[in-house]
Structures are given as C-alpha cells and as structure tokens.
C-alpha cells in the first residue's frame, strides 16, 4: 500500500464516480418518467412508439403492484424459456463455427436461470461451450432485460414510497422499454466501440490457429478410434505419491488412463462478438464473461484503461439511482446520505482487500517469493495487486460478478471481503436497481430500529412504517440468509457437494459458501475452482445453484413490490419534532450499522469456519 500511484488511481475512481452521479441521475429522472423528454427523442421515440403498438402496451395506463409483479414474472418466464431452448439446441442454430453441441438439461437450466436473474453464474467455460449465436442472443438479451427489470423494480418501489393514497406504482412494460432504449442501449453502443479501440475483439470469424514460436511437448490421455480414453494397469499411488502395497506384498494395480506425448506447436485463439456483450455485461452489472477467465482474459479486458472504465460502468447506474432517489422523494440530502453510506463501506472493503493482497502469502514468501510483490497467484501483471483488489470489491459490492483476478486464489482475508460484500445483500451501490431496492430494505429497517430506540412510531418519507411493512422486510432478509446457509450446509455434508471442490480444508468450505452466497445474492462471481458442471453429469450443483438464483431474485422482488404497493396507498403524515431525520451523519452511521450487523451476525459463524480460520492456519504454515 506504499504505492502512491495506486492511491492516486483510487482517488480518481471515487472522484469520477462522484462526478457522474448527478448528471446521470438527472438523466434517469427523464428516462423513468413515461412522459420524460430526452435528447435522444428524435431518434428513439419512433422505435419506442412502434414497440408499444406491436406489443399492445398502453403507455398511459399504470399498474397496481400485483399487475406490475405479474408482468415482470411473465416476462422473466418467457425470457428464461427462450434462453433454455436456444442453449439446448445451439447445434442446430446458426453462428456456431466451432460446432459446439447443445447443452445438457441441467446446464441449460442453470445458465437460463443465471442470466434471467441477473446473476450470470457460469458453470461452463464460454469459449469452449457457447456458440456465437448463444452468446449474442440467448445470453446477451438477458444482460439487457434483467438489468432493465432491476431498474424498473427500484423505480416502482421508490414511486410507491413517494406517492400517497395511490393505487398504482407505474407500468412495468414502459419502464423496461424506456430503460433499455434510452439508457442501456445508447451508452453500450459508445462504450463497446471504446472497448474495441482498447483491443477488445468484435468479429464472427472461426477461431484463429497461430503457429507458435516455441513448440512444447505435453502429456495427454491416449484415446482410441472412438475418442474413448485408453486405460492400462498401473501401480496405485496414495495421497503422498507412494505405491500402495497389497496384503500379498505386491503393489496394488488399478486401471489408469494411458498418457502419450503430444507436441503443441499451434495456439488456437478464440474469437467472437465480444465487445458488444461486455459493454452491457458491465453497465448492467451482469458479469457473465464471454470467456472462462472473464475480465481477466486479455480480449475481455485488454488494458488497464479498459479495466478502469469497466469498473466505473458497474457503479455508474447504481450510484446515479441514489441521486434519483433523493430527487423523487424531494429530499436530495437523503439521496446523498445513502450514497455516503455506500461509499464508506466500499472504501473500507477496498482497503481491507488491498492490504491483505499486498501483504501476500507468508507460506509462499518463505519459499522465496519476493515479499514486496504481494500475492500474484491468479492475478494479471497489467492490473497488479491494487486494481485486482479494487475490481474484486467493486464487482461484489455491486451484483456484477465479473472478475479480473481469481478470487479463489486470494489470501483468506482478501477473499473474505468479496464474500462479506455479497452477504450484505449487495447493497453497497449494488446491482442496477437491485442495489437500491436492497438498500431501501435496510433503510426501512434502520428507521424502524431508530424508532424503537426512542419509543416513537417509525416514519419514512412522511409515511408510518407499520407491522406489515416490517414483516415484508424481515421476510426478504430471512429467506435469503436461510437459503444461503441451508444450502451451504447441505452441500458441505453431501458427496455431490464435496466432489466439486478444488481445494481441501477450510478453503474447500469457503468455495461452497461462496457459491451459494454468490447465487442467492445474484452476483455470479465464484471461487472458480468449484466444478459445478462435472464431466460425470451429476446435476446436483447445477440444480441447487439454479434454484438458489431463482429464490434470490424472485422471493426478494415479490415482497418488495408488495411493499411498494402498500407504501403507495399510505396517507402522508406531517413531519414533527419527533421524526427521525433520514439525512446527515447520524443516519449514515445507523444505516451502515444496520447493514454490517445484519450481515455480520447472520454469517459470522460460517465465515469463522471458512476464511477466518484459514487466515490463522496460513499464518501457522498449515497446508491442505
């Protein structure tokens, strides 16, 4: 952390985020108003009108919370089936130059659930599984729509809070269409071209075969004419590499794959329409990589500058939404207070992660690795320690889940930060829309707790918070925590669960906890050593993670829209001397306290068994 340049990059990032918050927030005011006018009207308005006409949408008609919820659920279901069937049958569809087969039902279900819920968990490696058509159509459509739905839900909730004695909270179709046409698509068009200028690819060519400079020889399993592995008896080895001796004193023989030498003198370079997908992957906080290595892949994140703007794109809309919140509730200082609470938790997370990764791994340093270099396992040279730690914090504060370094190889405390961020419910800026509606749950809880402490009826934005509201809030928080911890517990004791692990000891447990935290939180990043799509076809991981993602998205959204409907119907009560102020330093502290305490108390025991105990074991040079 004694790198002044890194501090300067950090300051630039926070400064740039602060700078774009208000202008983008002002633009959101126009986008989220069905009658709003923008500078793009001349170009986009005709397309918007045509869309309404073809789909039979009446933009002047608003919906009740039930109508809004129904539209959202139907739209998500149609999108999920659309993706599922394209993935299953991609071998019969165009733009598949590598001839990839259709996906198995469990993988197609997992992936369709993943992209529909804005999670973008990937049980597969993109460049070795997906055709160009699957990437561009089946997956990218959700990068737009799941982001637009998230923003629409946040808009509906804030409208509900702002209105009084009202029956409707907006029109789902209008919100989704306007956010997509006026906000996401235009920014992506510009952003994608910028990314190409940095070296990101955008083409439809088959993979390029290059003649490498230095051929090498490697050992690969021998296969017969039918492509089946050939096995031969060989001495059985135990964990330490020693021959196992049978009761007769002779080595035990088992069938093992025969290995043959293979000369590698070419490099096949995966191509594809990457830039168009990455722009919306970041801006929509989706995070689903085109390639297996996600934003660490040089084609998916070619330069530190593309890295900086990708991180900024993740936070741009969530940050602007806090300004839009202040504007809509006619209390700009409340918007900034929410922003400040998010920024404070974000900065704290970066500092902890950065410190842990800079300090590096004492076990490796003892072997001779330069201490000053920090922990470079699973990191790219062009990003270095700081930009890897910053990216990891940003991507898990938000529900993005793109990674530019492998979180699985972070130091225990460096990996604890992303894990904890996801377990707060991703409300530190958070996903587009999802971050704001998640944070508003905590705002209501914080106001409720403050009300209990001073013994007055809690109020928020001039409305009384009543038992029904708090029940909905608690429902959201408890369903999420119970799903993460319950499924983690199951996978930890089941054979299918531990079969997927890449690491033993407490780190193996962390891989499981991370997977369910990520999926329920709709984040999508991973301790990527975990194999969720095993070659033996066991569907347990794909199925449980898929269900976790659906619970994390829809069991959160439905109570939130119910809350929006309930708030909209409430009567306004005038503020009095006893009203708890939702702006200023006290409120910011209370909000941070609520987020951290709910997260910490719920997940501390699990974290203690994973990263925390691993930290002490690493200090004592224990290996697994």
């Amino acid at each position, binding site marked *: 952390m004694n790198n002044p340049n890194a501090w300067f*990059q950090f300051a630039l990032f926070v400064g740039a985020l602060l700078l774009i918050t208000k202008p983008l927030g002002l633009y959101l005011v126009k986008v989220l108003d069905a009658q709003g006018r923008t500078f793009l009207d001349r170009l986009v308005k005709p397309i918007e009108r045509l*869309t309404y006409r073809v*789909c*039979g949408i009446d933009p002047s008609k608003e919906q009740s919370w039930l109508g809004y919820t*129904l539209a959202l659920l*139907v*739209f998500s279901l*149609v*999108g999920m089936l659309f993706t599922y069937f394209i993935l299953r049958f991609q071998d019969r569809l165009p733009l598949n130059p590598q001839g990839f087969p259709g996906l198995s039902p469990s993988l197609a279900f997992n992936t369709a659930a993943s992209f529909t819920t804005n999670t973008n968990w990937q049980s597969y490696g993109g*460049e070795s599984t997906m055709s160009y058509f699957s990437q*561009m159509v089946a997956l990218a*459509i959700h990068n*737009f729509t799941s982001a637009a739905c998230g923003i629409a839900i946040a808009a509906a909730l804030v409208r509900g809070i702002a209105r009084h004695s009202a029956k409707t909270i907006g029109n789902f*179709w209008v919100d*989704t*269409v306007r956010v*997509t046409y006026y906000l996401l*698509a235009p920014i992506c*068009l510009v952003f994608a*071209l910028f990314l190409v200028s940095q070296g990101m690819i955008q*083409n439809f*060519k088959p993979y*390029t075969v*290059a003649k490498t*400079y*230095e051929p090498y020889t*490697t050992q690969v399993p021998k296969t017969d004419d039918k492509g089946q592995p050939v096995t031969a008896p060989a001495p059985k080895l135990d964990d330490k590499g020693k021959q196992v001796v049978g009761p007769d004193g002779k080595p035990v023989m088992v069938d093992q794959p025969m290995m043959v030498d293979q000369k*590698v003198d070419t*490099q*096949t*370079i995966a*191509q594809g*329409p990457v830039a168009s997908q990455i*722009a919306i992957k970041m801006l929509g906080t989706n995070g689903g990589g085109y390639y*297996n*290595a996600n934003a*660490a892949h*040089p084609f998916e994140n070619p330069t530190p500058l593309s890295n900086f703007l990708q991180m900024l794109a993740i936070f741009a809309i969530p940050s602007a939404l806090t300004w839009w919140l202040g504007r809509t509730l006619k209390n700009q200082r409340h918007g900034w207070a929410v922003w400040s609470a998010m920024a404070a938790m974000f900065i704290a997370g970066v500092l902890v992660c950065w410190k842990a990764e800079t300090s590096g791994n004492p076990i*490796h340093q003892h072997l*001779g*690795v330069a201490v000053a270099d920090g922990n*470079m*396992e*699973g*990191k790219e*040279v062009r990003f*270095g320690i700081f*930009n890897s730690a910053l990216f990891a914090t940003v991507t898990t504060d938000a529900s993005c889940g793109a990674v530019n*370094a*492998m979180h*699985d*190889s972070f*130091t*225990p405390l460096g990996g604890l930060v992303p894990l904890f961020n996801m377990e707060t419910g991703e409300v530190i800026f958070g996903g587009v829309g999802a971050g704001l509606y998640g944070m508003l749950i905590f705002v209501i809880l914080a106001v409720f707790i403050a009300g209990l402490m001073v013994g007055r009826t809690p109020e928020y934005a001039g409305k009384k918070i009543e038992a029904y509201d708090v029940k909905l809030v608690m429902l959201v928080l408890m369903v999420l925590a119970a799903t993460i911890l319950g499924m983690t517990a199951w996978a930890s004791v089941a054979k299918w669960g531990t079969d997927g692990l890449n*690491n*033993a000891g407490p780190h193996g447990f962390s891989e499981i906890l991370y997977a369910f935290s990520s999926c329920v939180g709709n984040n999508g990043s991973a*301790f*990527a050593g975990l194999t969720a799509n095993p070659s033996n076809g066991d569907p347990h991981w794909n199925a449980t993670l898929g269900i976790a993602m659906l619970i994390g998205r829809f069991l959160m959204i439905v109570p939130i829209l119910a809350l929006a409907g309930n708030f909209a119907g409430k009567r306004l009560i005038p503020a009095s001397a006893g009203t708890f102020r939702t702006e200023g330093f006290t409120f910011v502290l209370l909000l941070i306290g609520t987020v951290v305490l709910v997260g910490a108390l719920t997940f501390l025991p699990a974290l203690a068994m994973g990263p925390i105990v691993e930290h002490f074991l*690493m200090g004592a040079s224990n290996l*697994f």
Partner: protein
Amino acid sequence: MKTFLSELRTALLLTIIFAVLLCGVYPLAVWAGGQALFPSKANGSLVTETDGTVRGSALIGQSFASDKYFNSRPSAAGTGYDATNSSGTNFGPTSQKLSDSIKAAVAAYRTSNHLAHDAPVPADAVTSSASGLDPHISLANAQLQAPRVAKARHLTTTTVSALIATCTDDRDLHIFGEPGVNVLLLNRALDEIH
C-alpha cells in the same frame, strides 16, 4: 386469466423485438463500427509474418520455456497458454499443490538465471495468472532473465535491455494499471535481430 394471456402475448412480442434490436442490430452495429475504425484490434491484434502466417496475438501470451527466450509466467490454461481454455489454477492460499509448484518454480528460476540460492524471486515468475494467457511479465522478472537470454544468443546485455524497454507497456496514460513487458513481442524482436 385474461390479464395473464394478454401479458403473455406482450411478453412474447417484446422478447422478439428485443432479440432483433439488442441481439441483432446492436452487435452488428458494433461489428461494423469496430471493423471500420479499428480493424486490427477488432480481429484480435494478430501478429503475422510478411507471408501472412499468423504467429499469435499481441494480447495473448504464449508458452516460452527455453534459455534463448524470455520465459512466460506459469499457465493453467489447458496444457499451458491454451487460448481456447482460459483459466487460473484456482488453488487457495493454503493449497499443498500450489505450494509445491511454487517451490519447484522458484528453484528452477534461480538455477536457470544463475541467482543466489536465497535470492528473492519475482512473484509473477512463479505464479499462474488469472487467465492463463497473461501476455506480460514484470520489469523485475525481465531484467533478471536478460543476462541468460543475452548469453544464449551471444548478444550484449545492453542490447537485450534496450529491447526490453521497447517492448514495455507503461501504465495507461502513465496512471492506470501496472507496467509490464510483452513477452511475445519481446521474443519476436529477439528473433528478428538474430
């Protein structure tokens, strides 16, 4: 039920319209713009010879392990620098396998570069990158390898050091990221003078 059916119809039609605009028109527009403005980059920044043979990409690392080339970082992509299987090792900090591989890599690095038996080794030289395709090594790593490469090619260390400087990518705008030496471009430059 009537509302459900009408919403279902809207959802189907909107999905189709979005698919055409966002999954057809939009990527094609980026493709057209990218191919017109940055054709080399949009097609993978390929490194080709005068006869058109593709030798690799300036952005994608390749495996180099002999004395006469600057060595790349260890790679977990397929059998090593497999650009259809990008991946890190995903070994955690207390992994026995990771510790073993770093131990072996440190010893090999010290031997091949004639370093003292307790000399600290640059972290990037003995750890795998996130993508397994990292095109760069750190400056310190390149400088430690320079005498070995110079000797194997009968060049002066000064010549090799000058080449390192030309193949170094500085921080973007002198601010963003960390500097690194592009191994493929550096080794190609070496082949060209030899």
